[in-house]
């Protein structure tokens, strides 16, 4: 019997100095074209490794898949509790659709989900720093190592919505070597419903505030008995 999932939402201004200096909430960064972007401020807090595995954003995407990093990420940000911008749930929604249309499981690569501003690959602003981009190296049994495969799945992803952007084959390098599909939603920030923005961009009275965003709303709204009955009949 599953309880409605709750994910703790934090205002990164309330985090300790080290975390704030790494996550840089609300700070400006420039993208490769020199355009200024304001970094996200509201994050999901993932308390433990177990929680990371248990928290589902969609039926097929757990939050753990978006936080796989290697030593390129700041040491502190590899430790639990981990943080990821709340916009990641929008990305998960589109990836779930992508999965359906592609007809195969989608594997987000290590370093291919959220990358903090302190991540070594975060040289310019990229959507990865907003939690709204995913690099995919494998779709079902296919390792994306040919131009044909990458182009094919790029097309599939782009057809999903005008909000979905993909990168052309060889986008990282400008020439003919590539090994993944990059899909993103642009620089989307999410202010969770439960958050109140009634304050200046500094911690107030040193008192951290947070909220719980409740997920799986339909299940929560349904009468308890009905839920139980449904579960049994399945």
């Amino acid at each position, binding site marked *: 019997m599953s309880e409605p999932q709750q994910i703790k939402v934090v205002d990164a201004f309330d985090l300790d100095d080290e975390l704030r200096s790494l996550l840089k909430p609300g700070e400006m960064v420039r993208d490769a074209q020199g355009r200024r972007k304001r970094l996200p401020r509201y994050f999901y807090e993932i308390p433990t490794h177990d929680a990371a595995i248990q928290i589902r954003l969609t039926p097929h995407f757990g939050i753990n898949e978006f936080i*796989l*990093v*290697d*030593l*390129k990420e700041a040491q502190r940000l590899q430790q639990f509790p981990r943080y990821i911008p709340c916009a990641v749930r929008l990305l998960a929604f589109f990836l779930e659709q992508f999965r359906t249309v592609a007809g195969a499981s989608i*594997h987000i*690569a*290590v*370093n291919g989900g959220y990358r903090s501003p302190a991540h070594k690959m975060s040289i310019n602003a990229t959507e990865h720093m907003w939690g709204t981009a995913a690099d995919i*190296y*494998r779709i079902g049994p296919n*390792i994306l*190592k040919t131009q044909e495969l990458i182009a094919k799945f790029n097309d599939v992803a782009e057809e999903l919505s005008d909000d979905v952007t993909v990168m052309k084959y060889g986008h*990282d*390098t400008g*020439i003919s*070597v*590539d*090994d993944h599909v990059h899909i993103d939603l642009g620089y989307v920030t999410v202010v969770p419903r439960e958050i109140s923005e009634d304050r200046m961009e500094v911690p107030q009275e040193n008192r951290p505030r947070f909220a719980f965003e409740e997920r799986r709303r339909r299940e929560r709204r349904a009468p308890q008995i009905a839920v139980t009955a449904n579960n049994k009949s399945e």
Partner: protein
Amino acid sequence: MVAKAQVLEEEKLPVAPAKDSVAASEVSLYRNVLKIKNEHTLENLGIAFYDAQTTIQWAYNGDQYFHAASTMKLAVLLGVFRQVERGELSLEAAVHIRNRFTSIVNQQPFMLDLGRDADPDVYGHLGRTLTIRELAYWMITKSSNLATNLLVEVVGVPTIQHALDELEIDGVRILRGVEDQAAFEAGLNNEVTANGLLKMLRLIADGRAYSKVASDEMLNIMLEQQYRSGIPAGLPKAARVAHKTGNISTVHHDAGIVFVEDRKPYVLVILTQFPAESARGTAVADVSRDIYNTIAGMTYE
């Protein structure tokens, strides 16, 4: 008995002074090495050894540079442990396994031809992670090119060269990872001398490569070497060798620390280069056997 055979050999030498067995051994060794070089029609041969038991050091063509082939992986190992020792890298840190690298020429991206990398241990983790420790292990024991390039990317070529410089290891030049075809075509290759590799291995054998702990870790990885057709093939079965081979089309190297019962280890580097048309022979093993016989002879005199 090996020792006896050596003595007989020396007696046949016209120039060997009867009472100076070290000098006699050297003359004998030199003659045998030339013989091996001719028999195997080697274009080049470089040898260096240091015996901790007798403190004898000997080299043939010790300062000549050779294409490093996979012996460069020893320098990468050193660079990794430098960073670990300084607290800048953890052996347990996760590294994303990815087959895409950047050439040192024009920063062109390239991929390894993994058909040639006998290496499911690393390639099998594509898209996932292995730890620095695991990568170091596969880089040395199975000469994984993928692991090597990933580690070169993690620590950086300047750090590797810096490690060599600060430990005063002359004769090892590291410019790049492996299979960088554009660099190869531009003549930019990693190069080693027998004396250079000898210095590096002596530091590791003596526990002076950054620290005793770091040296022992490196030594233990090298002891697990799985390619044994070089130095070990010229030794008695009981000998243990911490080593690294290096093979490309026209070179066949081996560099290692040899542990034989009841004596201190000796360090041996054998670099061979042969013409493109001739197949790789047993020159390295033959030199190794010769050196072993010589050293065993000196020990038991």
